[in-house]
């Protein structure tokens, strides 16, 4: 197997507080292959955004990486000095945030922001950088890019602004783009356009994408593989089609049943009782056990590791531990 572009091993993120240390990410491991789109889903507080922030070295204090490793193309990046990390960020890993209004500086024109980013990372003259910036805007579907590049962010609509942000993320030809809820602030009709632009622009440049979202529909249409997070732990990871159509982890299958769809005719939605535990009250054993309808003794006692299920699928659930079935049943 070739070296994955990004490899995250046993990542642990902790927040020390006065009342003890909260573990927000607990031994999360996954890989992203070159040119792959990995979707990362979960409900609020599951640790999706935190995973992205930890990879790119933008954890906000007092949050810190308390364990694990992050490798980018065989090079470890979680222990780089801030100076070296800054060269990775933007150059090798691009970032698209949720709210395009806050991720652009309102006091500078789009041209100034794009040219600054390009010249920070690439050795280009002002003129070449501008030419490149116009090309980027054109690529993300901004009409009359050569004229509009001198506008300020407030001249653009929400969807257009998010296109500018994508252009910024791609400015230095990064190998990986981390997109954190890139369409959540947008209307449905615009959301579809932005997802297309993001996907095509990245495929064209051979960049991998880590797409963080709470919207399973967006994942279904965009990602190659999907990782499901629950209470800071990986519940399930596998090819999109498998996970969406035949989820194995009880949390994932509950989640899929809870989403109303346009085609379904069922009268009631599947309901998972309760809600995700707070970080200071994660139960012993499997974090999902109090809400799980298949729960048994072992779930309350031991925490399940990711169990390989073939076809690139992994599930963290004792139901799928073959050895156990023979022993206990």
């Amino acid at each position, binding site marked *: 197997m070739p070296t994955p572009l990004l490899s995250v091993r046993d990542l642990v993120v902790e927040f020390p507080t006065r009342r003890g240390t909260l573990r927000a990410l607990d031994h999360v491991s996954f890989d992203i292959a070159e040119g792959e789109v990995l979707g990362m889903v979960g*409900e*609020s507080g599951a640790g999706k955004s935190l995973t992205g922030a930890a990879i790119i070295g933008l954890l906000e204090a007092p949050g810190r990486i308390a364990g694990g490793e992050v490798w980018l193309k065989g090079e470890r990046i979680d222990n780089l000095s801030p100076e070296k990390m800054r060269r990775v960020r933007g150059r090798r890993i691009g970032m698209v945030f949720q709210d395009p209004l806050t991720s652009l500086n309102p006091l500078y024109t789009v041209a100034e922001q794009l040219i600054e980013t390009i010249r920070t990372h690439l050795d280009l003259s002002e003129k070449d950088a501008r030419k490149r910036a116009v090309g980027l805007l054109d690529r993300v579907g901004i009409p009359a890019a050569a004229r509009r590049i001198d506008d300020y962010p407030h001249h653009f*609509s*929400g*969807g*257009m602004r998010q296109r500018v942000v994508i252009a910024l993320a791609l400015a230095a030809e990064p190998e990986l783009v981390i997109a954190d809820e890139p369409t959540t602030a947008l*209307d*449905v*009709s*615009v*959301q*579809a*356009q932005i*997802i*297309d632009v993001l996907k095509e622009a990245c495929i064209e440049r051979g960049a991998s994408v880590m797409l963080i979202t*709470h*919207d*399973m*529909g*967006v994942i*279904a*249409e965009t990602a190659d593989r999907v990782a499901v997070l629950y209470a800071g732990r990986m519940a399930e990871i596998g090819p*999109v*089609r498998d996970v*969406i*159509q035949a989820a194995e982890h009880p949390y994932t299958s*509950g*989640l*899929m*049943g*809870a*989403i*109303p*769809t*346009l*085609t*379904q005719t069922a*009268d*009631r*939605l*599947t*309901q*998972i*009782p309760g*809600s*995700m535990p707070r970080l200071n009250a994660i139960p012993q054993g499997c974090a999902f056990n109090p809400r799980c309808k298949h729960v048994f003794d072992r779930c309350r006692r031991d925490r399940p590791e990711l169990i390989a299920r073939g076809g690139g699928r992994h599930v963290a659930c004792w139901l799928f531990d073959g050895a156990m079935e023979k022993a206990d049943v």
Partner: protein
Amino acid sequence: MSDTLLSVHGLTRHFDVSKPWLNRVIERDDRQFLTASDDVSFDIRKGETFALVGESGSGKSTIAKMIVGLLEPSAGEIRFDGKVMDFASGAAMRALRRRFQMIFQDPFASLNPRWRVGDIIAEPIRTFGLMRGAEIGREVGRLLDVVGLSAADAAKFPHEFSGGQRQRIAIARALSSRPEFIVCDEPTSALDVSVQAQILNLMRDLQDEFGLTYLLISHDLSVVRHMSNRIGVLYLGRLVEVADAKRLFTDPQHPYTRMLLDAVPDLALSGRRRTPVTGEVPNPINPPPGCAFHPRCPHVMPECRQIQPQSIPTATGTAACHLLGQGAPRAQQG
């Protein structure tokens, strides 16, 4: 129709978004108006769920606020159970208000953080003088039980609850004056999917139990599909299509409805071909002339740019599009 509970006719609301007087004089600007709702008409039958969908700026919430009497319409009338709502008469509005309630989007903002849950739920009962003394406490306990919380929760404060539980409290409050009609403005859009499913199921159960009528406002077509009997689609303050829920999804008449349906990500991975969506919702202060959707419409015709289409009856509702009027004699000015 005798079973109509709420009837809205020609509902229009303008907002004055002009610059201050002095600026207008100096810059020689005219007054500017935003038309949040433009000649909207629909009926809601007893016991059904009618949904209004649309993107931001389509006027969904403005219409909801006018219906519950929080905002006065600029023109048009609202009839509730046969009686015209009279915004000028406080006593008449008060009598009507007991019969409808509202559930808001953000349960973190709609509950007073300084009040105990019991007082929040009891307020409509006290305001309308429906019960007195210990009876109120028992009723609050019963309502908490109905929405899936426990009677002991009445002594707690809102911050002790999660988002989904708070939305349950908001629902209990809405039920406390025994209303017939509840306006739900994006009741689940602040919630996670697994919690959203709990709230949607609860809303359905309550509808069956108390024979409630809902007006559901949402931007999420899948939620609307799941919950409603009939659907109205709004675009820039105008109602472009009304149809039975099933019909709207299988056979959309208006090009905008079709575009909205195409834009919803496909969870079934059916590989359905999507028509690429183009453009964005224009600024509602200066909507395009004629049909407001014409700059984005794939079937645009010359008359779309000049004449605003009228609502034309369809199989199960109405739609406002010139395409549908083809063949029929053109009524208005040409």
